[in-house]
């Protein structure tokens, strides 16, 4: 089954996004740790886009699609007409540098990469799509 959620780019919507993801994947992903890892990774992806591609403008939207058809693999697509924020091209800071530079960002991408199995970007109908997959055991 495919489920879609259109999200206005306001950080106050993140809680609703997490609830939508939990509910959508509850039947496919029965392991609680895996399920909450996916919720966390997608929270990080959405907040990154809201902040870096849309400057938290609530008039802008992104679309989240969760495809739970394949019992062994969750497929997620985030469609966005802003400037795609390609996390594969982003070099995560070293943890020690985060402490030394008192930086409050950069950890989210590290989390997404450690949780999801693949992250790819492509264009469809003029919009940027980020497709993420997670193998389900």
């Amino acid at each position, binding site marked *: 089954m495919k489920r879609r959620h259109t999200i206005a780019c306001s950080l106050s919507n*993140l809680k609703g996004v*997490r609830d939508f993801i939990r509910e959508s994947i509850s039947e496919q992903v029965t392991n609680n740790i895996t399920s*909450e*890892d996916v919720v966390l990774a997608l*929270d990080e992806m959405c*907040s990154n886009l*809201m902040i870096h591609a849309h400057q938290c403008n609530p008039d802008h939207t992104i679309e989240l699609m969760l495809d739970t058809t394949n019992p062994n693999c969750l497929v997620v697509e985030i469609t966005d007409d802003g400037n795609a924020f390609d996390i594969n091209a982003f070099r995560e800071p070293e*943890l020690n540098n985060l402490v030394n530079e*008192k930086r409050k960002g950069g950890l989210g991408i590290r*989390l997404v990469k450690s949780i999801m199995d693949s992250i790819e970007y492509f264009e469809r109908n003029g919009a940027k799509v980020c497709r993420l997959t997670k193998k389900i055991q």
Partner: protein
Amino acid sequence: MPDIHHNQENNLQVLTISGEIDASSSIDLDQAIARCLTESKNDLLIDCTALNYISSAGLGVFMSYVEEFKNRQSRMIIFGLNPRVAHTFSLLGLSDLLTVAENRTEAEKILNEA
């Protein structure tokens, strides 16, 4: 919205966080820790027993204060992580950089040993 309470107890400060810390609410955590630093030079215990969720924004806030506490020669100890939140810490391998205790008793033991 998270609930954050600040308590001065003898020669300790205790910050109690409940609810969820994400990119929208991490600013509240940031301001609360900043206030602790302004108000007192005492060690800070952060009680996360009722914290249900944390994303990188909240973890980034903790990390950004590590150096400041070190420079003041006081301690910031986080305790009471539920298994879910502890798992998020472990995904990033933050336990080497942040001081995390099982519970309040262990947190105070770490302070007394230092």
